[in-house]
């Protein structure tokens, strides 16, 4: 059977080759070729051969099922042999398998307050990701975030770039820059084709309390516990830094600014496959240095680490500690989630006549969200692709007025999503924002309409 099939393939290839050669030879001299008796008889012969082959193919039961049987009879390990076959043998990637993926989005916001923006198109983000796998034990993954800033510049961030060593069924060692394992939004939900609303909850995006990334090593994995499952992630890394205001930044810095490594992690418990409860923590120390107030761009407090101008005496390192809990219920058409995070940086004593000590900084954020796919109610071709979503959340900042005024807010979203495909979604949402730390005479409230088309590929 195999032989028969191989023979057919071989003869088809020969035939195809011959036809091609013939076509190439004949094309410049078509006029003559048409009445060349030798050529005509050759073509006739080929036509006969083709008809015979067709008949033979029709007889061979060439359904995938039977081919599959043929194949598994010859090669013991199907997945491996298939991947080998599909990997280009002489490419520089030989031995490695490559996947290109990522996501992109674009959209617009319409605010009822001119001063907060009026109507804006958002160029959105383009996040290409590359994954290379070597054998079954090594994976390199990297994703960039390319964004058009409000000022028109293109921002480029390496979201993550990590080597994953799949050492054991229950443990993977990760080294490099990776998304923070703290909480659920950053690591699991932030790509726009996954997110149920057009933006991150207050306090969970850039500048929030949710840690963004970490550079270091991480051990993570899942362990079955009967019908339920436990998963864990424990990371050691360079940890957060202070910005010139005294705010704690957690973007995954390529170099440690102090000799204290940060430890962070999360433990998750799934009593049922569609229920997960998690608890996270981060412990680190941050230290700054005073500098000439004027030289530091923020113009505010002259405290920073690794910032030009901060060349004064190094201030004592203080503790930054964060903890949080999260939960998810994702049965059938439901997608219900909540998350709470609280980070506290201790007060920073400054012994300098011109500067005051920095008080304790507390950042606290939470949200709850419910989304429901109408496919749970109706089989209607169009209606079933809609998904109403609602989210309420709050971000509070105490101990740093400037940050509080910028970011502290209470936010309510009413969203309606339309799913074109499992990873193509149109988000629309009405968003009510109240900036809780702004004065009465400032714009401290607005209502926005957000539209976003997101595509995961």
């Amino acid at each position, binding site marked *: 059977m195999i032989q028969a099939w191989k023979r057919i*393939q071989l003869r*088809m290839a020969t035939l195809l080759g011959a036809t091609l050669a013939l076509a190439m030879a004949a094309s410049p001299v078509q006029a003559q070729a048409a009445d060349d008796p030798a050529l005509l008889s050759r073509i006739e012969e080929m036509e006969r051969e083709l008809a015979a082959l067709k008949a033979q*193919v029709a007889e061979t039961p*060439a*359904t995938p*099922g*039977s*081919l*599959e*049987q043929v194949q598994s009879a010859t*090669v*013991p*390990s*199907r*997945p491996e042999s*298939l*991947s080998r076959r*599909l*990997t280009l043998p002489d490419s520089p990637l030989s031995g490695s*398998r*490559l*996947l290109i993926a990522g996501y992109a989005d674009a959209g617009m916001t319409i605010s009822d307050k001119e001063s907060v923006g009026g109507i804006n198109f958002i160029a959105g983000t383009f996040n290409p990701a590359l*994954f290379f*796998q070597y054998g079954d034990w090594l*994976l390199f*993954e990297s994703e960039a975030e390319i964004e058009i800033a409000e000022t028109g510049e293109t921002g480029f961030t390496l979201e993550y770039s990590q080597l994953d*060593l799949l*050492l*054991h069924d*229950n*443990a*993977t*060692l990760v080294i490099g820059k990776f998304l923070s394992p703290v909480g659920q939004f950053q690591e699991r939900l932030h*790509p726009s084709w*996954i997110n149920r609303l057009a933006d991150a909850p207050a306090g969970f995006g850039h500048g929030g309390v949710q840690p963004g990334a970490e550079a270091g090593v991480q*051990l*993570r*994995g*899942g*362990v*079955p516990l009967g019908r339920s499952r436990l998963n864990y*992630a424990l990371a*050691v890394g360079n940890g957060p830094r202070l910005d010139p205001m005294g705010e704690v930044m957690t973007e995954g810095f390529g170099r440690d600014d102090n*000799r*204290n*490594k940060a*430890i962070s992690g999360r433990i*998750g418990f799934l009593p049922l*496959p569609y229920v997960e409860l998690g608890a996270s923590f981060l412990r680190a120390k941050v230290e700054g240095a005073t500098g000439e107030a004027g030289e530091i761009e923020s113009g505010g407090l002259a405290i920073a680490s690794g910032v030009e101008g901060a060349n004064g005496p190094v201030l004592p390192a203080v503790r930054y500690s964060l903890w949080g809990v999260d939960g998810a219920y*994702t*049965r*059938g*058409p439901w997608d219900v989630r909540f998350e709470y995070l609280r980070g506290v940086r201790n007060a920073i004593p400054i012994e300098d006549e011109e500067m005051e000590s920095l008080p304790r900084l507390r950042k606290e954020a939470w949200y709850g969200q419910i989304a429901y796919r*109408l496919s749970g109610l109706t*089989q209607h*071709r169009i209606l*079933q*692709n809609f998904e109403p979503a609602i989210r309420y959340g709050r971000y509070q900042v105490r101990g740093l007025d400037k940050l509080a005024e910028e970011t502290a807010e209470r936010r309510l979203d009413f969203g309606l999503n339309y*799913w074109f495909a*499992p990873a193509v979604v149109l988000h629309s949402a009405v968003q009510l924002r109240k900036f809780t730390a702004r004065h009465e005479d400032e714009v401290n409230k607005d209502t926005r309409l957000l539209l976003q088309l997101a595509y995961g590929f």
Partner: protein
Amino acid sequence: MRGSVTLIASLLLFATAAAVSRDAGRAAAAAPAAPDTGALSRGAKAWAENCGVCHNLRSPDEFGDVQAEVAVAHMRVRARLPGDVARDILAFLQASNGRQAAAIAPAAPPTSSTVASAGAVGDPVRGAQIYQETCVACHGPNGKGALDGVPDLTDPAGRLAQADEVVLRHMIDGLQSPGSPMPMPPKGGNPDLSDQDMRDVLAHLRKDFAGR
């Protein structure tokens, strides 16, 4: 400082121990066998249970074998799945992406052309056996559906109310109605099954489930 050095050291130590025990385990196991039906139906269930909790389930035929392998490795890390679960899921995805035929024999006629002649009758007893091996993980022992997103095949006004040709084509080629939280993989994800096998299962569905 000392604390974190100890922590890093113990992480690495643990990782080395894990790697060594893995290699030892590997040596003990004989050459890897082709994925058995067990792996496929475990994989179908594990895929349905695990791969839709963060994002929507993406169609199993979205990726070829190689991309599926890399994506599953990525998701094993991201979703902290145990390795054996990830392997079952990969076996299922590679079996149900319908790419093998195309890769081996581009000239093979499309399967659905053979379906047009759905006249042939099926054997419900053989069909019941096949159902138990391949379909039960998702459709449940009584056909009412074992997982969310799987339709109730016993509903008199439901899927089996359609004509044989239609149902058969969906069973053979797979089906994802837009908006459905989960797709039906071609031949339930088991490419070893033939079109005749599908006719047998359909006979079983009609005889034992329809309208019960």
